[in-house]
């Protein structure tokens, strides 16, 4: 049997006034199962700790109950003290007789009775406490970042700057994400490409970063600190190291394909560079549209390439990367505009999406930054911007607010006004959400100085009459119907998780919300981690975000990753689930209850396993275990039962 000592703190008068500490120490001293008991004015003080340490040595104690304030205050203090005295820190229990006893009761006899029960229950728990050490596992000090938009770029740079290796995986032929498509950024109206391209170049040149474009994550195994990620890279027909981006190949390519970069408003060839500042700076061959890789079919580009960078025999490759942490930064896409049939997108070329309008405004866009409408190239004199296309419409589309549309629609209106001075922008809105640094000022300035006309209401329908787009709407402030004959309509489409991220979420076993956005571990306090240990989130894959928010989160994510990678072993609390192999029936109920994927079945022995690193110790699986095979270290069913018995017995 354990040799247990009980130490009762007066906490000055805080405990002593309501709890008869002397009587209690006498009472516990008299118990057969207690070797030593004493009370002292301030146990947390240095002399107080010395008393405990001395008693451990003198009475050969191997377990200590300290009855004092809440364990949130001094549990670690007393743990350190008994460790210094040579005991394992789990051989100490705090009995909370201040916050949960002396401070909340007035009656001294009753307070004393309750304190004795609290201490008695703690003694019962301590009797069965095991000595434990933190579990640990080795760790690969390398991170993977999935997605090369602004959030992924920022995360990768921050982690790499701290000295850790980063592997970036990007699905498209170049990094840059949606931000590289944007014209200017709100609220400062600085050029998006000008602020992004230096970061892209920095990433490409960073000695700690390996970049894989045209690549996708196909599988992941292992756990935090020790992931093995399988990456598939599409066939690399153009060697980026040899390509000198002379563009001879695309000049001879006979195929025209709508350009993804220009959102279908411009054209590219089947062999092309996504945009001039692409990283890696290389042409790429779009196999789906190429006439055929055999020189008999076409082969013009390879013939023309003086650098011999084109290799038709390339094939897809699959490789495995070992990393300690994975960051998801897969960003967003726009809600399918076809879903809003009444706006006539596709039927009317002058109804465009917000990203298309970004390209029309952009100096590198299909019109060279001159505002022209797609149908006839005329300069639109009246442009209607419609916010919340698909957002905030739980009945038919998406229930959530896409957050960035209020600001970018206004930015569009302003930039349009700056380029077409006699033009008239109209904005239909539900609410103007300008919560951000200098955002509200940006709105007010546009209304008062730039004559941007806001109409509160939704647009019911868009139709063409001659070369005009007729926009039917409702001004909900006046209750009147509004009809605007515009030259062009821009739809601020809702933001959705990027296409394909649902597949990725399944591969990574990461949770998503009902809209497909990745779930953070805690909505307020752990916003950059996912529930899967070692899996982190950055940017719009978690929720719609503007650039400042995405960058802040990215840096936050990088910091969290760096904490994880900062030691070469990963430590974890030992207060976790365990399984008694002999009792386990292999029913697998525990596996479904675990929110962390820490429980799995050993298929050979049909015994449920616990991953010591993933288990957070909540105990949900233990309560669910029908055979009592699952237990929690130092909070076993027996310990709980014994504590219950103390409380149930009361002072009988």
């Amino acid at each position: 049997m354990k040799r247990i000592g009980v130490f009762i703190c007066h906490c000055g008068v805080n405990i002593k006034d309501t709890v008869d500490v002397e009587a209690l120490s006498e009472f516990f001293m008299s118990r057969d199962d207690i070797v030593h008991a004493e009370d002292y004015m301030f146990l947390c003080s240095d002399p107080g700790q010395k008393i405990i340490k001395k008693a451990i040595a003198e009475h050969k104690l191997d377990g200590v109950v300290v009855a004092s304030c809440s364990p949130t205050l001094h549990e670690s203090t007393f743990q350190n003290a008994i460790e210094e005295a040579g005991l394992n820190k789990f051989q100490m229990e705090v009995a909370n007789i201040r916050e949960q006893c002396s401070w909340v009761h007035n009656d001294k006899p009753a307070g004393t009775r309750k304190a004795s029960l609290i201490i008695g229950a703690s003694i019962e728990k301590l009797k069965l406490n095991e000595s434990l050490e933190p579990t640990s596992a080795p760790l690969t000090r390398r991170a993977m970042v999935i997605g090369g938009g602004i959030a992924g770029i920022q995360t990768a740079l921050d982690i790499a700057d701290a000295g850790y290796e980063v592997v970036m995986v990007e699905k498209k032929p170049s990094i840059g994400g949606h931000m590289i498509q944007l014209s200017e950024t709100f609220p400062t109206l600085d050029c998006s490409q000008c602020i992004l391209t230096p970061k892209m170049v920095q990433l490409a040149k960073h000695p700690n970063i390996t970049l894989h474009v045209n690549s996708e994550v196909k599988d992941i195994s292992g756990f935090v600190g020790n992931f093995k990620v399988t990456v598939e890279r599409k066939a690399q027909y153009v060697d980026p190291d040899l390509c000198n981006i002379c563009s001879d190949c695309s000049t001879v390519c006979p195929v025209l394909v709508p350009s993804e970069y220009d959102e279908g408003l411009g054209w590219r060839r089947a062999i092309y560079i996504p945009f001039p500042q692409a990283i890696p700076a290389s042409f790429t061959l779009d196999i789906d549209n190429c006439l055929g890789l055999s020189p008999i079919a076409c082969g013009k580009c390879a013939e023309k390439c003086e650098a011999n960078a084109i290799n038709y025999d390339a094939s897809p490759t699959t490789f495995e990367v070992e990393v300690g942490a994975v960051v998801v930064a897969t960003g967003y896409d726009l809600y399918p505009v076809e879903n809003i049939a009444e706006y006539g997108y596709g039927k009317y070329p002058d109804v465009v999406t917000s990203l298309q309008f970004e390209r029309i405004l952009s100096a590198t866009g299909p019109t060279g930054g001159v505002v022209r409408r797609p149908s006839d190239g005329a300069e639109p004199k009246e442009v209607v911007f419609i916010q919340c296309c698909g957002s905030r419409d739980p009945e038919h589309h998406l229930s959530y607010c896409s957050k960035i549309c209020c600001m970018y629609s206004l930015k569009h209106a302003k930039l349009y006004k700056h380029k077409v001075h006699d033009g008239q922008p109209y904005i239909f809105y539900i609410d103007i959400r300008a919560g951000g640094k200098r955002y509200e000022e940006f709105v007010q300035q546009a209304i008062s100085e730039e004559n941007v006309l806001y109409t509160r209401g939704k647009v019911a329908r868009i139709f063409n009459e001659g070369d005009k787009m007729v926009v039917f709407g409702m001004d909900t402030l006046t209750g009147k119907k509004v009809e605007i004959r515009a030259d062009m309509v821009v739809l601020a489409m809702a933001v959705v998780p990027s296409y394909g991220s649902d597949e990725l979420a399944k591969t990574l076993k990461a949770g998503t919300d009902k809209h497909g956005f990745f779930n953070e571990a805690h909505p307020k306090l752990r916003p950059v981690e996912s529930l899967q240990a070692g899996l982190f989130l950055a940017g719009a894959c978690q929720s719609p975000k503007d650039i400042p928010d995405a960058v802040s989160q990215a840096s936050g994510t990088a910091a969290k990753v760096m904490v994880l990678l900062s030691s070469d072993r990963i430590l974890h609390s030992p207060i976790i689930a365990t399984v008694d192999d002999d009792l386990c029936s292999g029913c697998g109920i525990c596996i479904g209850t675990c929110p962390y994927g820490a429980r799995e079945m050993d298929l050979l022995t049909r015994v449920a396993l616990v991953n010591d690193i993933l288990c957070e110790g909540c105990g949900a699986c233990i309560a669910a275990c029908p055979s009592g095979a699952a237990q929690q270290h130092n909070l076993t069913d027996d310990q709980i039962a014994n504590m219950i018995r103390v409380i149930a017995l009361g002072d009988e």
Partner: protein
Amino acid sequence: MQLPYYPGCTLKNHAKHFEDSAIAAMERLDMPLVEMEDWVCCGTVFSMSSDDLMLQVASIRNLVRAEHQNLSELIVLCSMCYNTLRRASDFILSDPENLDKVRKFMYLEEKPFDGTVEILHLLSVLRDRIGWEELGRKVVRPLANLKVGGYYGCLLVRPEKYAIDDFEAPTIIEDLLGALGATASPYPYRLECCGAYQTVTNKDVTVQRTYELLNSARNAGCEAIVTSCPLCAFNLDQRQRETIEQFPDFDPMPVFYFTELMALAFGANWDPEWTKLHFVNPEPILRDKGLI
């Protein structure tokens, strides 16, 4: 195959040509319409204006009688009757308490209401049972060169739950007209309200609507418009009398029921009695296109 149908009051007087042409057309498709017995007024959309159970009794009585006549479905032509019957039926069936009350109130009826009768609009029957291609093959007198606009108004597509087609971008009328050989041009106002019962107390509202609506159709190249609602037809056709007076630039335009054009396309002859029920005489345009 016979189709049990519910005409409703208007189809027996002001919109007699709607009923007659429908019967003629469906006869030629070998799907004759057979009028249900003992029907009464549907209650009209007024019954939908409040949650008063008693206002639904007229609709429910029709459905009870249809059940009693062993009808499993009821084909409706009038948009308003269609809408009212379906919504009344749903309103009662969606709440056991409502159902119980209505049954207790109607205990003298032949049968308790069970809600087994499916209420269908003729347009959806044409689409779902025959199909546009098959309909096209049955056309003997194609409406070639006839440029018409479909007019939905509200009751075919609102509320969303009872819409016979995509409630924001329906094509069912245009699809039918296309199958009949006509050119159907969509125009901005095809889903806008005609003014409905404002025509009784606030006539000018409907006159204004008629003016905007028909001009919108004309600007889209339509020579006539096509509807399935007697109230819409009244507002858009009969109110052209006042529209001409108030808007000197207004050019009258004939308003058809879709069944009139179906009857012609499937080989029935135009009945001069139908012309009498139109305000704007449709005969000149039909003659012009060689349809009569």
